[in-house]
Each structure stands twice: as C-alpha cells, then as structure tokens.
C-alpha cells in the first residue's frame, strides 16, 4: 500500500498539473442541491454555486416521502444530483470512522475505514438522486489489497505520456514489500528533461536511464495523450490496456514474460482471424 515514510520528490509540477487535469478535470463541474434534514424535516437546503435555497423547504410536506421529494427536486431544479443528508448521520459517520480507524494501518486501509463509515449510511442517512453511491458500498478493502498483490514486488513501475514528442506527464512508482515507498519522475534523473525525437523509437532509452539511476529495470508503459485519454474514459480499462498493448498503441518494457506471451498470442489469433495488423 502506501509506506509510512514514502518518499515523494522531484516531480515536475507542470507534468503533475497535466495529470491532474487529465484525471480530475474532465467535463463540466457537477451541480447539486444538498439537503440537511432531521427525520425528514429540512434544516438547510443549499445549491452549489447559488448558496442557501430556503424557499425549497416548502416542497417537504408530511404526506411526501423524502425519496420522492428529492427525485422531484432533481427534475424541477435542473441540477445533476440531489443529496439528502441526515444531520445525526453526519456525526455518526465521523464517530464510526474515528472509533474504527487503525493508526498503524496503511493509508489505503485508513481511507477504507472512512469509506465504510460513509457506506453504512447510504440509503438511510445519505440519500442521492440519481443513485450513484452503491459502488462505494460494493468496494472492499480486500479487493484493492488483492489487486495490489499483483503488483510486482521490489520494483519500479513507470508511466510516460507524450504530447507529440514532449513528455506530457511521467511517473515512477517504487514498490517494496507490497508497499509504495517512492513516487517520483524523470526529474530525479535529469531535471527539466522533457522531449525526445521519436518516442516510439526512444522509449527503450528512457527506461534504460531509469534502470541506470535506480538500479532496477522499471516495468514501464509509454503512450500518447490521446491513448491515455481513451484509457481513462474507457469503461473496461483492463481490456483497453490489453488491446492497446497488443496493437502497440501502448509500448511497454519489462512486462513479465507470461503477459508478453499472452499479448503475442492475441496478435497472432487476431491476424489469423483476418485482422492483418500486427
């Protein structure tokens, strides 16, 4: 997971800004109405960007269920989402989280304590329309932990994304004993290095310079911005990744042999079935 004394250094802030915008700044910001209530009696109603909306309290009557009210509000007010949060539930979430969090556990596990506290209120203390929080309830720490066990141990994982032949964003993650203990970039090797002549030919050299600096051959992935954007937007990211590797839209170094064999076989079968591009 994330090491207690993880080293985080030598980031290029421009590259980090690019990654941030690629991951978190896609599309228009969501608009929402948030209702704080106590047993269905609204205490506050706030709309993002507009402030307090006390006039909406009149929508709540004795003969209407909360879930019906927020559904109607969503349609009538034209917001992306309506949340109804019980006032006592806010306290319950924090209390449960702070009673259960393990201060010696890794950060991901600690976050799951918070997630579990929030999930315990979904559908009761926290209602939302349209529904969109059930995934949170279904996400379990053991699932994430299992995914992390697939990560190579005592290794470096590198992701480099190009815009043309300029490095648009680059990340080097160090994993030791199943724990991420390093997050850095190529700035650690050569501050300000940002471009190559032809990345599809030179990616080997980039991986090689990382190996020489850190003493470990990185498991490295290289792609262009458009491919990264499509990967982020894909609903089946594993499949997209596999296909992109197979189709050489994503280049890799030091992929474990079994995965290279699988990709090779995929290309062969694809060729045999009529797709001649290898």
């Amino acid at each position, binding site marked *: 997971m*994330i*090491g*207690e*004394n*993880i*080293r*985080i*250094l*030598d*980031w*290029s*802030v*421009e590259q*980090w*800004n690019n990654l*941030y*915008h690629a*991951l*978190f*700044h896609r599309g228009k910001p969501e608009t929402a109405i*948030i209702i*704080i209530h106590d047993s269905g009696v609204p*205490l*506050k109603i*706030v709309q*993002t960007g*507009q*402030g*307090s909306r*006390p006039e909406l309290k009149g929508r709540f009557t004795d003969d209407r269920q909360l879930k019906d009210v927020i559904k109607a509000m969503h349609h009538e007010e034209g917001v992306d989402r309506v949340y109804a949060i019980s*006032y006592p539930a*806010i*306290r319950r979430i*924090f*209390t449960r*989280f*702070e*009673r259960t*969090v393990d*201060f010696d556990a*890794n*950060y991901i596990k*600690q976050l799951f304590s*918070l997630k579990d506290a929030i999930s315990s209120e979904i559908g009761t203390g926290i209602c939302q329309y349209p529904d969109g929080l059930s995934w949170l309830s279904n996400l379990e720490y053991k699932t994430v932990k299992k995914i992390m066990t697939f990560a190579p141990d005592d290794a470096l994982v590198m992701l480099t994304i190009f815009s043309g032949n300029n490095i648009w964003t680059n990340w080097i993650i160090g994993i030791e004993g199943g724990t991420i203990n390093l*997050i850095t970039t190529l*700035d650690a090797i050569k*501050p*300000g290095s940002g471009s190559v002549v032809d990345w599809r030919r030179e990616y080997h050299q980039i991986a090689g310079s990382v190996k020489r600096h850190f003493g470990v051959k990185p498991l490295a992935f290289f792609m262009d911005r458009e491919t990264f954007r499509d990967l982020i937007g894909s609903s089946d990211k594993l499949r997209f990744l596999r296909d992109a590797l197979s189709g050489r839209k994503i280049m890799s170094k030091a992929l474990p042999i079994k995965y290279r064999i699988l990709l090779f076989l995929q290309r062969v079968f694809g060729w045999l079935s009529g797709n001649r591009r290898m």
Partner: protein
Amino acid sequence: MVYASDMALTARDGDFYLDDERMLLVSGSVHYWRLERLRWEEILDRVRGMGFSVVCTYIPWGVHEISPGEFDFGEINPNYDLDAFLTLCEDKDLRVLLRPGPHVNSEITYFGFPKRVLEDPLVQSVTADGTPVVFPSPPRMFPVPSYASEKFYQEVGIYFDRVCPIIRDHLHPHGCVIAVQADNEMSFFLRIQPYDHDYSEGAILLYLRFLNEKYHNIEQLNRIYGTDYDSFDKVPPPRDFNARGRNDLPYYLDWIEYKEYYLQHGLTRISDLLKERGITTFMYHNLPGICIKPPYNQIKMEEIVDAVGFDLYYYKEEYHKVKRCVQYLNGTSSVPFITEFASGFVALPIPVKPIMLDDAEFTTYAALMHGFSGINFYMLVERERWVGSPIDRFGGVRKDRFRFYQRFNRIIKRMNYQKMRIKFEGILLINRDCARLELASSLLTPIPIVGGITHEYYVSEDDLGFNDVIPLKYGLQWDALYYGFGAAKYAVTIGDTELPLERLSEYRVVAVPTFDFMSRDVQDKLINYVKGGGCLVMGPRVPEFDEHIREFGIIGEYLPKPDGRMDEVMVEGIIMKDVDIFDTGVTDGTTDGATGGTADTVSVLTADPGTIIYQQKIGNGSIIHFGFLFPRITEDIPAGLISIIDRIATACGMRRVIPCTDPQIDATVHIADGADGREILFVANTRMDEKDVDIGGIYLDPDSEEMVGPMIRIPAYTVRILEVASHDR
C-alpha cells in the same frame, strides 16, 4: 535563569525594523534537514542570487528525536546539524527566521510530532463523542494532540530543552536568528466546527477556567444564562447547537469565545516555553489562510506574540481571498506579515490542483498591491513532498521561477517599497459578535470548513427571535459591502470590531454590518468614534441588545425609528429585502434628548415609498444607516450596487482611487513617507479577459519608462505598477 533580551527585529507603526532601520522583511523557506549537507552552501548561494537575504526554516521535532529525550542534531545524520546550518547562514550573511514547532506540518508524516507522543491518550484531543480526532493527511492519518493537555506541554518542554540552546547560540546580535515562530497554524488542525473537539479533560477544565475568568462568580453566569448551576464545574460544555430562542444564545456565544481563548492559551503556553528557555527574540505566529473570523482572533493573539500573520496559498482565480487576507492584516496587525506565501506546491498523491507559476506571478503582486511589511515565500528550495520552487534540491535553478523572484526583489527595491504606505479612507469591520453567532449555529459539525464550504452551507436558518436570520444574513451583508466598495474603487481596508478606538479613528469611514445585538463595548466604541468625527456606515438593523442579549441600544438612541417595513423594494435594479422605511423630515436643529447634540437627519437614498438610507449627524461625525438586506453578491457585481455604494461614499466624502468601476479591475495607491511624496498606483486585472482601464491620469510606467494613461491596457491576471506623474487628464 534570566536571559538578556536584545531583539534585532522589532515592529513599529506597521513596519519591521532591523537594528532600528526600517526594512521590508522578504524571506524564503529552505529546509536544511531535507537537503544534502554538501549542497547547503550552493543552495544558499542560489537563494542569495535571487536577491534574498533572509531565510526561514522549521525545526522538526519528530525528525530529530531518536527516542524519548534523545535527539540527533547532526551526531548521526549530518543533514540534521542545525547548528552547522545556522553557522553557514551566518557565514553567508543571511538572517534566519526559525520555526521550532512543536507543530510544523511541512508534509512530514505526523506533522513533525513524534508518533509516540500522538499515541499517548493523555496527549490526544477528544471529540464531543469521545473519540480521538483524526487528521486525514497522507501518508498516514493520525490523532491530533490537545493544546490543553499538560502531558503534551511536558513533552514539548523536553524537546525545547534540547533545541533552545542551539537557537540561543545563534540569536542576534551574535548570530543570524532574528525571529522565532511559536508553534504553527494553530487552528484545531483545521477542524474548526464548534462542537467537534476538544472535549478532553484538560480542555473542559480550561473551559471552566475561561468561564470563571469571564464571570467571576456563578451567580453572574446564572443570571446571564438563565440557569441555576451550583458552581462552574457543573456547567457542561455545549456539544451541539440547541438554542431555541435568543435568550439561549449567551451559552453558545461564550463557547465560541472560549474556542478563541483555547487557541490563545495554546499560543501562550508554547511562547512561554520558548521564553523560559531564553528565546527572547521577536516572536510570531502564523494562521492558515483567511482566518478573519472565530475561532481565530488575530488581534488577541497579537497580545501574546509580537505578530500574527496568515499563510496564503491561492490560485490566480482567487484574487479576493488574497485581498481579504492582506487587507485584514493591514487593518488589524501591528505589522502585516504574510508568514507563508505560495512558491511551488505540496507534492502528495491527493486530487488537488497544484499552484503553478502563473498563479504565483499574479497573486504575489496582488498581495504587494494591498500592502504588507513582510512576506516569507514557501518554499524557495524544493524538497521531499514540495515541488515547483525556483531552486531544486540539488541546487539547480528552475529558470522561469528563479527569474520571477529575482525580478520581484528588484522591483520592490527599485520602488523602495518599505518606504511606501498604502492609503485607505475607510475600514470594513468583521462584526465579531455576528461572526461568533454564525459559527455557533453550525449544523454541519464535524465536517471541516474547507474548500468551497461557505457559511451558507452550515449555519442555522432559525431567526431565534431576531428580526433577521443573522447567521445567514450577516455574511451576505458583509460580502455586499466588501464587493461594493471594491468595485466602486473606494480605498477601504478590512478590520474587526475587536480593534481599539484609536485604530478606528485613523479612518474617515468605518463600515460594519449590524443586526439586533452587539456587545456593549463595541456599541460604545462606535458611538465614540462617530462623536469624534468619524462616519459610521451600518445596517441593516440597529442593535437593541448587548452580547448577553440584555437590552442595550446606545446607538439607537441617536437614530430615528423606522416608520414601516416592506418585504422587498427594487433599488437601482437590485431587489432589497426586509426594507425599513424612514421619515427624514428636516429638523429645526433642536437638541436630541440623549446627548444634547444637534439632530440632523438627511436622506441618502430614497425608493418608493420612502428613505431607505439616511445620514444622521452626531457630535462631530455621522452615522449612515441602510435599513435593508442586500441580496447575495459575488464577484459579478451588479452596477446597481456600485450606484448605491456611490451614494454612501459621497455622503461620507470619499473619493474613488481611479474612475473605472469595472468590478474585474481593482486599484490601490501607495504613498511614500516624508518629503519623498511619490505615489504608486497598482491596478489589477483580476480575471481572464484583457481590459482597457481608465486610470484617471498620466502615470510613468517604470518598466517601459513611458508615460501612460489615462487609458491603459491590462492583460488577464496582471498587476500593473505605475508611478504618479500627473492627475491631469
């Protein structure tokens, strides 16, 4: 042991003085323990190369402590040799601001506290529900300490016993250290919701002590609260806002005042621990961001240390946050000091946009235009978990950033910024009584008030028997005045009703949103300000009650009562709500009963069906009272608001800084002291569109050395700095 006191750095009349010479304190942060010792010299040379002569560093307790009572200050890890670092600074003729904590944050796991200290239940803060208080920062969440814990201070004392001798060895005049910061960002670890924490045993005892100091005897408290407690220790601290009417409020308002007292207590304890160990230099503290409302009381905190500043980390789109912070410091502090200002950004795997160079380029000059006496750039040198600074941790330069700070230092030197004083005609006060009620009425405990959460998200909407829903409306009225005066280009700074009368009397105009209740001493202060010749702008309501919600309305004795109230009135295209209408028939100059002064009431703004803003002469001054609620005003300021503010300003005798009233543009004027007489105009374009601006005269552009004006072009997110040549058009 008595230690000699010889402060190199002092503060006088809003300025820093170093060895009695007035100076602009400009420093930048360098963290010695995170850099290779062999690179220190080269890095400090680079810092000097940008034009800095003062550096600042934390001293992280949790890094230096190997085991309880055992520390490594270079004996094991040479990078930790604080003494060597300070000696090197002296060799380089660099002055140093030291920040020994105990809290340092700086993205260190556990914020610089040793883990074993935080794990001690006797040290931990406690929520209202009896749990530890979790700070969720990666890479490890941790329980925060209580600043009411005696065990905590014992532990801090042991650490200070070890570090203070090193600091003492390097204090001015024999060393480079000219100031020490006591603790860091004292703020309940940003969990400032009123009923969140600290409910530990020590904190409750502190609360009872606060009540005792305030009321002296339990009978007095019972009279105010309407209770019948036998003793102070029977008074339970509030754990939620359950007021049903205004008479329930003193209990909750006291709780908020106690939260301010708690922070002051913590600051006192830490600064005393340092002073007891011979740290007798200039001492200061830093608050995190816009800390102009409870539980922060910057004015009271400056009675404990020599200066209290703010830490500013804002994007270019957040101009008004920069402005509010710097203006508040200007209006309240003994010496406006921006204790941290963004240079680079925290490097943690969190979904927060980094502050980029173009953000810093605009916000740095935005801060400059609003006037400070000191600024510390955080950070000048990158280190682990901090990137985007002008110098990387290997001593290399990031050219664009490096040049930016070189240029900045050249500009402030060229304009002799320390000799300039920003000119204000008016001051807009935070109404501390209303701000306390705003926080007290929170319904969102314990969700932290961070990011985009404004008071509208969390305050109660119960009017509690007052004329208005004060917790909701107060902030909106303040914003309307703030944005209105700003867009109309009147030179108005920001202050606090906590300020003494002498400070208020420096301004021609004092503006403050007022409602049904206001502390007695504040009402007295304001009426004395007016009688002394000042112009008080207030509204919508005239206070009838004091802080104990007992009848007290001295201001109201001088003012006419409204004739009636309208639900809403359209004025200059804006809908005003709950509008009091006044009859301002001209009097014959007869004496009013309360004071013997002349009672002249003049209409300032009328609407159908009557006067809604009037001016009442009182003694040598006057009160301008607006009797309505402004609507919600944001940065998109309607022209009608500017028109209304113009009416008020004209009645007060104020003049615009520049003719332009575009709300996207802002302007300030700085005037040099003494015979110099130079005037410098700062004009900011606060948004993303280029603008042509009427600056009202001909100015010298020192960059191009050309005369410009009265129309100039300002690119997006840019501050232009011009020297006055002529006000002739």
